[in-house]
């Protein structure tokens, strides 16, 4: 049995007062209908909104005590889409990777980055806020010359690579692409061409590694045994995956 005061319950019938209602709204104690009413009031009644703020502040120390967890990389594009910053994705159409737009993007960026290296006809730069717009990672030689342009789609598990012709001489060896997670060891993503643009499919288990801050690198390796467990040859080009 509880103390006598605990069993006298009038609070269920008499209105609890604005400040308690504000606390109940803030904590999430209210049933859906009550919650909607209280939330609507907080939108229109500044005095009540201040009471809710007061409870927010009282419990603020607990808010930041939650364990941070990174959301998936796909969320940011969804938010941009909701805000109307880019067109909705065009599903069930030609694959993104073959789209003309992406090609133009890649070409335009190549023209900017590698102007001194190769002569590319500058294409018309498309609007930046488009469905196909993804950051382009430049895999560069030590001297800064671009060797590959790469776009990463972590959710689809695709890495699209466009070599800048004539910048790499693999000879008898093969160009192997690696992902190097921040602070981690290189993981092979397979072979890439030094002459043709193509898509590298990324195994599901590795997709989470394709995060901003990780480094993509190309080494020259033996043709046998790709993907290798670890790189043995020299790094010919590398670049950091750009921001989401």
């Amino acid at each position: 049995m509880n103390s006598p005061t605990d069993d006298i319950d009038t609070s269920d019938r008499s209105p609890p007062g604005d400040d308690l209602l504000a606390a109940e709204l803030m904590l999430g104690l209210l049933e859906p209908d009550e919650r909607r009413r209280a939330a609507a009031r907080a939108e229109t009644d500044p005095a009540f909104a201040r009471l809710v703020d007061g409870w927010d502040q009282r419990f603020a120390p607990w808010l930041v005590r939650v364990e941070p967890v990174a959301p998936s990389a796909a969320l940011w594009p969804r938010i941009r889409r909701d805000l109307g910053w880019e067109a909705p994705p065009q599903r069930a159409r030609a694959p993104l990777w073959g789209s003309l737009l992406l090609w133009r993007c890649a070409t335009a960026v190549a023209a900017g980055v590698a102007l001194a290296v190769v002569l590319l006809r500058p294409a018309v730069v498309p609007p930046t806020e488009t469905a196909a717009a993804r950051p382009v990672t430049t895999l560069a030689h030590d001297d800064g010359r671009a060797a590959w342009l790469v776009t990463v789609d972590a959710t689809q598990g695709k890495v699209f690579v466009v070599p800048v012709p004539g910048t790499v001489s693999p000879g008898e060896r093969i160009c192997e692409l690696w992902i190097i997670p921040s602070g981690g060891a290189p993981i092979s993503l397979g072979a890439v061409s030094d002459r043709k643009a193509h898509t590298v499919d990324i195994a599901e288990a590795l997709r989470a590694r394709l995060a901003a801050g990780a480094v993509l690198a190309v080494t020259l390796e033996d043709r046998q045994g790709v993907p290798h467990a670890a790189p043995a040859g020299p790094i010919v080009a590398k670049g950091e995956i750009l921001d989401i």
Partner: protein
Amino acid sequence: MTQTNAPQPVVDARGPELLLSRVAAGDRDAFQALYRETSALLFGICLSVLRDRAEAEDALQEAYVAIWHKAAQFDRSRATAITWLGSIARHRAIDRRRGAGSSATWVALDVIEQHAADEGRAAPSPDDAQSAARLDGCMSQLEPQRQRLIRAAFVEGATYSELAARCGSPLGTVKSWIRRSLLQLRACLEQ
């Protein structure tokens, strides 16, 4: 599936405030930077309420859309940026939890102990550490059962009726306990 979502360090309180003021002016880059800095914390908040990644991501998505639209309403004299952002995320998550067909499951009250056990976690600034110590101090003056109820309400956004069902006490009694505890807490914090 490889899990590489390492927890991010606790957010610096000043960064988000500067970013928010730029976001209020329509600066998209600032919004992206704000997302980068705060999304892990806000996602943690959504997850604690919803316990389901997909649901929590939906809530987080709604939260950031709301943050973009409401950034101009942020008033630093009323709340810190993190509190403001966090409470938007929390409210979105709670709304989603209340939504029809929500699959959010109840967590045993014991799990809430974990939250209590995290009390020692470093706060972002000395000011925050001080207010955290005050809140924890005032909480500790409540009976253990009531502490658990308040924590469950805050961490998960549980309703009175959920809490009553979980602790097997009548709804009216649970309401009365919690309301009394809240008043006690308020009085203690105002000392």
